[in-house]
Protein backbone atom coordinates (compact mmCIF):
# COMPACT_ATOMS: atom_id res chain seq x y z
CA UNK A 1 0.00 0.00 0.00
CA UNK A 2 1.20 3.49 -0.78
CA UNK A 3 1.93 5.63 2.29
CA UNK A 4 0.53 9.15 1.94
CA UNK A 5 2.62 12.10 3.04
CA UNK A 6 1.67 15.52 4.42
CA UNK A 7 0.05 17.77 3.29
CA UNK A 8 -2.38 15.10 2.02
CA UNK A 9 -5.78 16.01 3.54
CA UNK A 10 -6.52 12.43 4.67
CA UNK A 11 -3.78 12.85 7.31
CA UNK A 12 -5.64 15.82 8.82
CA UNK A 13 -9.07 14.17 8.79
CA UNK A 14 -10.37 12.42 11.94
CA UNK A 15 -10.94 8.74 11.19
CA UNK A 16 -14.37 7.13 11.43
CA UNK A 17 -15.22 4.40 13.94
CA UNK A 18 -15.11 0.94 12.38
CA UNK A 19 -16.87 -2.38 12.93
CA UNK A 20 -13.92 -4.56 14.00
CA UNK A 21 -15.76 -7.75 12.94
CA UNK A 22 -16.08 -6.54 9.33
CA UNK A 23 -13.90 -8.81 7.14
CA UNK A 24 -12.78 -5.71 5.18
CA UNK A 25 -11.33 -4.29 8.38
CA UNK A 26 -9.51 -7.54 9.12
CA UNK A 27 -8.06 -7.47 5.58
CA UNK A 28 -7.06 -3.84 6.10
CA UNK A 29 -5.07 -4.75 9.23
CA UNK A 30 -3.28 -7.49 7.27
CA UNK A 31 -2.37 -4.95 4.58
CA UNK A 32 -1.16 -2.50 7.22
CA UNK A 33 1.07 -5.20 8.74
CA UNK A 34 2.44 -5.99 5.27
CA UNK A 35 3.26 -2.37 4.49
CA UNK A 36 4.78 -1.82 7.95
CA UNK A 37 7.04 -4.85 7.58
CA UNK A 38 8.46 -3.78 4.24
CA UNK A 39 9.16 -0.23 5.52
CA UNK A 40 12.58 -0.16 7.20
CA UNK A 41 12.50 1.05 10.81
CA UNK A 42 8.70 1.39 10.84
CA UNK A 43 7.08 0.34 14.14
CA UNK A 44 3.50 1.38 13.43
CA UNK A 45 1.09 2.30 10.68
CA UNK A 46 -2.41 3.77 10.80
CA UNK A 47 -5.19 3.54 8.20
CA UNK A 48 -5.14 7.30 7.40
CA UNK A 49 -1.50 6.90 6.32
CA UNK A 50 -2.65 4.60 3.52
CA UNK A 51 -5.49 6.93 2.54
CA UNK A 52 -8.35 5.49 4.61
CA UNK A 53 -9.98 7.71 7.20
CA UNK A 54 -10.63 4.93 9.70
CA UNK A 55 -9.71 4.30 13.34
CA UNK A 56 -7.48 1.28 12.70
CA UNK A 57 -3.74 0.86 13.23
CA UNK A 58 -1.00 -1.70 13.72
CA UNK A 59 2.05 -1.55 16.00
CA UNK A 60 5.11 -3.73 16.50
CA UNK A 61 8.04 -2.46 18.59
CA UNK A 62 9.62 -5.91 18.95
CA UNK A 63 13.39 -5.61 19.32
CA UNK A 64 13.46 -1.79 19.49
CA UNK A 65 16.17 -0.67 21.93
CA UNK A 66 13.88 1.88 23.62
CA UNK A 67 11.05 -0.61 24.18
CA UNK A 68 10.43 -2.04 27.68
CA UNK A 69 6.99 -3.59 27.77
CA UNK A 70 6.28 -5.13 24.36
CA UNK A 71 3.07 -6.80 23.22
CA UNK A 72 4.56 -7.90 19.89
CA UNK A 73 2.70 -7.25 16.67
CA UNK A 74 -0.94 -6.26 17.15
CA UNK A 75 -3.75 -4.31 15.52
CA UNK A 76 -6.38 -2.21 17.27
CA UNK A 77 -9.66 -0.65 16.19
CA UNK A 78 -11.36 2.41 17.71
CA UNK A 79 -8.57 2.74 20.28
CA UNK A 80 -8.23 5.54 22.78
CA UNK A 81 -5.90 6.48 25.59
CA UNK A 82 -7.78 6.32 28.90
CA UNK A 83 -4.86 6.79 31.31
CA UNK A 84 -1.61 8.66 30.68
CA UNK A 85 1.20 9.44 33.13
CA UNK A 86 4.99 10.06 33.24
CA UNK A 87 5.17 12.55 30.42
CA UNK A 88 8.51 12.83 28.69
CA UNK A 89 9.89 14.41 25.57
CA UNK A 90 11.26 12.36 22.69
CA UNK A 91 12.20 13.01 19.08
CA UNK A 92 9.86 11.44 16.55
CA UNK A 93 9.88 10.92 12.84
CA UNK A 94 7.01 9.65 10.70
CA UNK A 95 6.76 8.01 7.28
CA UNK A 96 4.05 10.53 6.44
CA UNK A 97 6.37 13.47 7.23
CA UNK A 98 9.55 12.20 5.60
CA UNK A 99 11.69 15.35 5.79
CA UNK A 100 11.17 16.49 9.39
CA UNK A 101 11.54 15.24 12.94
CA UNK A 102 10.21 16.88 16.09
CA UNK A 103 10.36 16.81 19.88
CA UNK A 104 7.04 15.64 21.26
CA UNK A 105 5.90 15.12 24.86
CA UNK A 106 4.19 11.76 25.25
CA UNK A 107 3.07 9.79 28.25
CA UNK A 108 5.63 7.18 29.29
CA UNK A 109 2.86 5.00 30.77
CA UNK A 110 -0.56 4.54 29.21
CA UNK A 111 -3.67 2.45 29.39
CA UNK A 112 -5.16 2.09 25.92
CA UNK A 113 -8.59 0.60 25.29
CA UNK A 114 -9.70 -0.60 21.87
CA UNK A 115 -11.17 -3.56 20.01
CA UNK A 116 -9.47 -6.52 18.37
CA UNK A 117 -10.08 -6.89 14.63
CA UNK A 118 -11.97 -10.09 13.87
CA UNK A 119 -13.46 -10.90 17.27
CA UNK A 120 -14.34 -7.32 18.13
CA UNK A 121 -13.42 -8.10 21.74
CA UNK A 122 -12.55 -5.22 24.04
CA UNK A 123 -8.77 -4.98 24.52
CA UNK A 124 -7.06 -3.24 27.43
CA UNK A 125 -3.38 -2.59 26.88
CA UNK A 126 -1.20 -1.26 29.66
CA UNK A 127 2.25 -0.36 28.43
CA UNK A 128 5.15 2.06 28.76
CA UNK A 129 8.24 3.61 27.16
CA UNK A 130 8.54 3.22 23.41
CA UNK A 131 5.43 1.11 22.89
CA UNK A 132 3.40 3.76 24.74
CA UNK A 133 4.86 6.45 22.46
CA UNK A 134 4.09 4.40 19.34
CA UNK A 135 0.49 3.84 20.46
CA UNK A 136 -0.06 7.55 21.10
CA UNK A 137 1.46 8.38 17.70
CA UNK A 138 -0.86 5.94 15.88
CA UNK A 139 -3.96 6.93 17.88
CA UNK A 140 -3.17 10.52 16.88
CA UNK A 141 -3.07 9.48 13.21
CA UNK A 142 -6.54 7.99 13.62
CA UNK A 143 -7.71 11.37 15.03
CA UNK A 144 -6.25 13.27 12.07
CA UNK A 145 -3.22 14.50 14.03
CA UNK A 146 0.46 14.39 13.10
CA UNK A 147 3.41 14.76 15.47
CA UNK A 148 3.69 18.27 14.00
CA UNK A 149 0.46 19.11 15.85
CA UNK A 150 2.12 18.28 19.18
CA UNK A 151 5.70 19.59 18.87
CA UNK A 152 7.17 21.04 22.05
CA UNK A 153 7.90 24.53 20.70
CA UNK A 154 8.70 26.81 17.79
CA UNK A 155 12.26 25.50 17.62
CA UNK A 156 11.46 21.83 18.23
CA UNK A 157 11.20 20.75 14.58
CA UNK A 158 14.32 19.67 12.71
CA UNK A 159 15.23 18.65 9.20
CA UNK A 160 15.40 14.88 9.02
CA UNK A 161 19.01 13.94 8.39
CA UNK A 162 20.48 11.02 6.55
CA UNK A 163 23.65 9.74 8.14
CA UNK A 164 26.60 8.05 6.49
Amino acid at each position, binding site marked *: MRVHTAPHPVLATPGKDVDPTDPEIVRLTESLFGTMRVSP*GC*VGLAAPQVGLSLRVFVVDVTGHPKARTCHGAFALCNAEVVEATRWEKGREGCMSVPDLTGDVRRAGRVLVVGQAPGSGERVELRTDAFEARALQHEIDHCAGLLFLDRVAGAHAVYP*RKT*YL
Partner: protein
Amino acid sequence: MAELAVTVIGHDRPGIIADVAEALSGLGLNLTDSVMTRLRGHFAMTLVCAGEVPVSDVESALDPLIRDGTLTVSVRDVPPEEAAPEKGTPYLLTVHGADRLGLVATVARAVTAAGGNVTDLSTRLAGDLYLLIAEVDLPDPDALRTRLAEVLDLEISLRAADSDLL
Protein backbone atom coordinates in the same frame (compact mmCIF):
# COMPACT_ATOMS: atom_id res chain seq x y z
CA MET B 1 14.88 28.60 -8.16
CA ALA B 2 17.07 31.43 -6.88
CA GLU B 3 17.29 31.93 -3.13
CA LEU B 4 17.72 35.07 -1.05
CA ALA B 5 18.83 35.27 2.60
CA VAL B 6 17.25 38.04 4.64
CA THR B 7 18.16 39.08 8.18
CA VAL B 8 16.22 41.54 10.32
CA ILE B 9 17.67 42.61 13.67
CA GLY B 10 16.82 45.41 16.07
CA HIS B 11 14.20 46.84 18.41
CA ASP B 12 11.27 44.49 18.87
CA ARG B 13 7.70 45.60 18.33
CA PRO B 14 4.53 43.75 17.32
CA GLY B 15 4.11 43.40 13.55
CA ILE B 16 7.69 43.07 12.27
CA ILE B 17 7.17 39.53 10.96
CA ALA B 18 3.88 40.53 9.33
CA ASP B 19 5.58 43.50 7.68
CA VAL B 20 8.50 41.40 6.39
CA ALA B 21 6.35 38.48 5.22
CA GLU B 22 3.87 40.76 3.44
CA ALA B 23 6.67 42.60 1.65
CA LEU B 24 8.19 39.31 0.47
CA SER B 25 4.93 37.72 -0.63
CA GLY B 26 4.01 40.98 -2.37
CA LEU B 27 7.10 40.49 -4.52
CA GLY B 28 6.20 36.88 -5.26
CA LEU B 29 8.93 35.52 -2.99
CA ASN B 30 8.13 32.29 -1.16
CA LEU B 31 9.36 32.39 2.44
CA THR B 32 10.81 28.91 2.94
CA ASP B 33 12.92 28.29 6.08
CA SER B 34 13.06 30.90 8.84
CA VAL B 35 13.90 31.35 12.48
CA MET B 36 12.97 34.22 14.73
CA THR B 37 13.72 34.76 18.36
CA ARG B 38 14.57 37.53 20.79
CA LEU B 39 18.22 37.87 21.76
CA ARG B 40 18.51 39.89 24.98
CA GLY B 41 15.28 41.58 23.95
CA HIS B 42 16.40 42.40 20.43
CA PHE B 43 14.26 41.11 17.59
CA ALA B 44 16.34 38.70 15.45
CA MET B 45 15.07 36.96 12.33
CA THR B 46 16.90 35.07 9.62
CA LEU B 47 15.11 33.61 6.65
CA VAL B 48 15.61 32.16 3.22
CA CYS B 49 13.09 32.87 0.50
CA ALA B 50 12.84 31.62 -3.05
CA GLY B 51 12.02 33.53 -6.21
CA GLU B 52 13.49 35.40 -9.14
CA VAL B 53 13.58 38.90 -7.65
CA PRO B 54 16.60 41.26 -7.69
CA VAL B 55 18.13 42.06 -4.29
CA SER B 56 17.55 45.79 -4.90
CA ASP B 57 13.78 45.23 -5.28
CA VAL B 58 13.66 43.32 -1.99
CA GLU B 59 15.66 46.04 -0.24
CA SER B 60 13.23 48.66 -1.58
CA ALA B 61 10.21 46.68 -0.39
CA LEU B 62 11.76 46.30 3.09
CA ASP B 63 12.90 49.95 3.23
CA PRO B 64 9.90 51.12 5.34
CA LEU B 65 11.15 48.84 8.13
CA ILE B 66 14.48 50.63 8.50
CA ARG B 67 13.28 54.22 8.12
CA ASP B 68 13.01 54.96 11.85
CA GLY B 69 16.48 53.52 12.44
CA THR B 70 15.45 50.85 14.94
CA LEU B 71 15.89 47.86 12.62
CA THR B 72 18.74 46.65 10.44
CA VAL B 73 17.88 44.62 7.34
CA SER B 74 20.21 42.75 5.02
CA VAL B 75 19.33 40.95 1.78
CA ARG B 76 21.77 38.69 -0.05
CA ASP B 77 21.65 36.26 -2.95
CA VAL B 78 22.63 32.78 -1.75
CA PRO B 79 23.30 29.76 -3.95
CA PRO B 80 20.92 26.86 -3.21
CA GLU B 81 22.50 24.25 -0.92
CA GLU B 82 22.33 20.55 -1.67
CA ALA B 83 21.27 18.43 1.30
CA ALA B 84 24.38 16.36 1.98
CA PRO B 85 24.40 13.25 4.17
CA GLU B 86 25.58 14.07 7.69
CA LYS B 87 28.70 12.54 9.14
CA GLY B 88 28.45 11.01 12.58
CA THR B 89 25.33 10.75 14.73
CA PRO B 90 23.34 13.53 16.41
CA TYR B 91 23.86 14.49 20.06
CA LEU B 92 22.50 17.24 22.25
CA LEU B 93 25.27 19.04 24.12
CA THR B 94 24.43 21.15 27.16
CA VAL B 95 26.97 23.23 29.06
CA HIS B 96 26.12 25.63 31.87
CA GLY B 97 28.07 27.48 34.47
CA ALA B 98 29.37 30.88 35.51
CA ASP B 99 29.62 33.34 32.65
CA ARG B 100 33.09 33.66 31.21
CA LEU B 101 34.70 35.09 28.12
CA GLY B 102 35.28 32.61 25.32
CA LEU B 103 33.08 29.74 26.49
CA VAL B 104 31.34 29.29 23.12
CA ALA B 105 34.68 29.53 21.32
CA THR B 106 36.18 26.86 23.55
CA VAL B 107 33.25 24.46 23.18
CA ALA B 108 32.82 25.01 19.42
CA ARG B 109 36.55 24.51 18.79
CA ALA B 110 36.46 21.30 20.81
CA VAL B 111 33.54 20.02 18.70
CA THR B 112 35.48 20.79 15.51
CA ALA B 113 38.63 19.17 16.87
CA ALA B 114 36.63 16.04 17.71
CA GLY B 115 35.54 15.79 14.09
CA GLY B 116 32.04 17.03 14.88
CA ASN B 117 29.76 19.64 13.41
CA VAL B 118 27.33 22.02 15.13
CA THR B 119 23.93 21.93 13.39
CA ASP B 120 21.91 24.04 15.84
CA LEU B 121 22.95 26.30 18.69
CA SER B 122 21.46 28.61 21.25
CA THR B 123 23.08 30.34 24.17
CA ARG B 124 21.53 32.39 26.97
CA LEU B 125 22.99 34.56 29.67
CA ALA B 126 20.73 34.87 32.72
CA GLY B 127 22.33 36.79 35.54
CA ASP B 128 25.70 35.10 36.01
CA LEU B 129 24.47 31.81 34.59
CA TYR B 130 25.62 30.99 31.08
CA LEU B 131 23.82 28.26 29.15
CA LEU B 132 24.86 26.69 25.86
CA ILE B 133 22.71 24.11 24.06
CA ALA B 134 23.98 22.69 20.79
CA GLU B 135 22.90 19.97 18.42
CA VAL B 136 26.12 18.34 17.23
CA ASP B 137 26.86 15.56 14.79
CA LEU B 138 29.72 13.49 16.19
CA PRO B 139 31.67 10.52 14.87
CA ASP B 140 32.75 9.64 18.43
CA PRO B 141 31.06 11.24 21.48
CA ASP B 142 33.81 10.05 23.83
CA ALA B 143 36.37 12.02 21.82
CA LEU B 144 34.40 15.22 22.53
CA ARG B 145 33.94 14.32 26.22
CA THR B 146 37.70 13.81 26.56
CA ARG B 147 38.55 17.02 24.75
CA LEU B 148 36.04 19.11 26.74
CA ALA B 149 37.35 17.64 30.00
CA GLU B 150 40.82 18.91 29.03
CA VAL B 151 39.76 22.48 28.24
CA LEU B 152 36.70 23.06 30.44
CA ASP B 153 36.15 22.69 34.17
CA LEU B 154 32.36 22.60 33.79
CA GLU B 155 30.02 19.64 33.81
CA ILE B 156 28.68 18.88 30.38
CA SER B 157 25.74 16.79 29.29
CA LEU B 158 25.96 14.92 26.01
CA ARG B 159 22.88 12.92 25.11
CA ALA B 160 21.89 11.06 21.96
CA ALA B 161 19.43 13.14 19.93
CA ASP B 162 18.43 10.56 17.38
CA SER B 163 14.82 10.36 16.28
CA ASP B 164 12.63 7.29 16.18
CA LEU B 165 10.51 6.49 13.16
CA LEU B 166 6.96 5.77 14.30
